[in-house]
């Protein structure tokens, strides 16, 4: 897939930054002319991925979170969310619905939501080194709009 445009964001793992991250990504993705539903899906998936970094990657410290959004040809968006935190010992387990190591404020549905709101998800993680989540979603043309 040919790359057409990109942006990167970097911020500390403070929960106050969740809203900023999902809004900034949605703003940039808006140039692809997505439907409101697609924009909502992107916002939701980014919110889940960034929350994982804040809650799990850096449980007791503040660390760096990097979000990169690439707009690719054929109307694909690729969202990469990266941290340098504790890593996930068992990625398959972490992706199971309802599995969580969080407290009662967490539902264990983060990865399930990311999966249902995007077309593909790739998770790379190394204990003690960090985790990278790459999400891809194809944007349909809005009907009756020429671009």
């Amino acid at each position, binding site marked *: 897939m040919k790359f057409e445009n990109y942006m990167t964001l970097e911020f500390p793992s403070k929960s106050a930054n969740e809203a900023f991250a999902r809004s900034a990504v949605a703003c940039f993705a808006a140039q692809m002319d997505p439907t409101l539903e697609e924009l909502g899906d992107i916002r939701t998936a980014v919110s889940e991925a960034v929350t994982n970094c804040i809650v799990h990657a850096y449980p007791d410290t503040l660390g760096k979170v990097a979000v990169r959004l690439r707009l690719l040809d054929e109307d694909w968006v690729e969202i990469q969310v990266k941290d340098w935190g504790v890593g996930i010992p068992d990625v398959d387990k972490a992706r199971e619905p309802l599995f969580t190591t969080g407290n*009662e404020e967490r539902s264990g*549905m983060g990865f399930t939501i990311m999966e249902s709101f995007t077309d593909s998800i790739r998770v790379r993680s190394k204990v003690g080194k960090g985790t990278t989540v790459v999400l891809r979603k194809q944007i349909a043309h809005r009907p009756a709009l020429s671009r």
Partner: protein
Amino acid sequence: MHFTSFLQNGVLTIALNGEIDHHRARGYIEKIGAKIDTYTPDECVLDFSEVTFTDSSGIAVVINSMRRMAQIEGKLSMTGLGEQPMRVFRASGIDKLVQIREVV
């Protein structure tokens, strides 16, 4: 964050608002819990009409409210779900556990 609520015939309706994410989830859980404890209703209706966004943190808010109502042998329902919150609740299956009421 301030939620309006009213009690009528044992039904407590709580109007939520804004964006529900991990940053704000604890506040939602505590506020809803405090209202349920105060009014001990037969039924609690969470009104999402003014909620513009939720992620999986909203699922935790609903599950916690459901547990709180179960403790007093009451039930929980939801209403006024916009498109985005509805998609999140459908993907998680929570829409099958909690009754969704038509907007009154």
